[in-house]
């Protein structure tokens, strides 16, 4: 089977993207964090480092698994579910 990148794998899953993010990253809290476990533990790979070394986050491919909020040692992630009907739409689950 061909190796698939996560961006490609996410296109398999159906999303109904809402206009505003349901997860807000308080980046000022990330500054003192060396751990940055959000990057390695997000199954959708939505946390990345930008050129300046700051954490970037996009919400559109969020699988709503709940991991980032729990692993963040700085409580920098304000996590809510997307508005009713929006977000990930699992057909199999």
């Amino acid at each position, binding site marked *: *089977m061909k*190796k*698939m990148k*996560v961006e490609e*794998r*996410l296109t*398999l*899953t159906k999303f*109904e993207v809402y206009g505003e993010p349901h997860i807000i990253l308080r980046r000022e809290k990330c500054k003192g964090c060396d751990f940055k*476990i959000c*990057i*390695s*533990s*997000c*199954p*959708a*790979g939505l946390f990345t480092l930008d050129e300046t070394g700051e954490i970037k986050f996009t919400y559109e491919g969020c*699988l*709503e*698994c*709940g*991991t980032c*909020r*729990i*692993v963040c040692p700085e409580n920098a992630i304000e*996590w*809510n*579910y*997307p*508005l*009713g*009907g929006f*977000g*990930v*739409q*699992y*057909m*199999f*689950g």
Partner: protein
Amino acid sequence: MSERYDVIVVGGGPAGLSTAYFLADHGYNTIVLERGSEPGSKNVFGGRIYTYPLDKYFPDWRKDAPIERWVRREALSILCEDNIVNLEYEIDRKPNGYDSFTAFLSRFLKWLALKVEEKNVVVATNVRVDEILFRDNIAYGVRIGDDKLEAEYIVIAEGANTLLSERHGLRRKISPRDIAVGIKEVIRLGREKINERFCLGDEEGLAQFLIGSRFGGGFIYTMKEYVSIGVIYRPLLNNQIEAKDVIEELKIHPHLSKLLRDGVPVEYSAHIVREAGYSDLMHKPYGRGYIVVGDAAGLILNTGFTVRGVDLAIESGRLAAEAIHKTPPGEEPAVYMKLLREKEIIKTLKKFRKVSKILSNERIYTKYPEYICQILDKIYTVDELPETLNESFKKAVGGKTSIIRLIFELLTMVRSL
């Protein structure tokens, strides 16, 4: 939504829908509020459901429930670098005699929602509950955006990610050590290929647990036309591989890539799993006007070999409904805890309380698979200088750990399982 309901159930997963189902039997006017656009559209699990609660409470469920395959083969496999060690148990029973079946949770919940609606329960979708309303520590309703909905009882069935419970101080945020992330891919392979490659009859399924040093724990469940494969990713242990890559890591193993050849991935999903077992169980999963069921209450059991979530959710829903029914107005439904104890749910969780510690021990994913593979490799490699089992063992393990420590660890593990 101006009608007045006796009970509001927050969450249309296995626990919430079951609670509503049993409440209807007691004559309660119930509404289920589900944030997804359909029941099941936000739910993820591995792939197996145990039959006993369905047999007990859902007459004729086998006629129309979305059963994929009956689990006939149970396997526990250690994936080494290129090789695989299998322990298999094949169950030969009469049709209808199997303990569990494979399924897709989203489809199963659509079916369950229909059963609930047949009892005149309203299942409202696209509804996100933002807050549970309390007055003098008594829950009396929920807030949905700018709307309010009131009821005698609020059933909190929000699942493993306990946002609402935490928001209202009913639970603390779980430690990262006590969660795993189930990361799954569903692959379309076709019925014939599945039957052939996994040695299964048309209705027969495989449930396989995987252990491997590269990815940790994992699973395979065969469906009719699809295969679900997944990894139980532990963020604090597995951090040498990023979560987004673990599925590929699993799929490129020679054994799996052979089994899944020509398969077409159709869905990628993930959800946290609460792994702490007994210690994660809420001390008081109820209060005046509310009751907590299923994963949200900590009712999930990982025995090390099997994971039970849906069946415990159904049972807890039944007991929550009974507790609400038995509690006089204005009082706490404390009888819920008594019922959970009587039904041995709590005893079972307690019995397996040490398993979570084992499952979070890095060595069971790294060292042990390596030892076992090396020992077997030495035993079955035939050349001019064959080795005895003892020699193979010493060569595999020696130098890396003391035999005493290894024996001690294994004994501790066996005693807890």
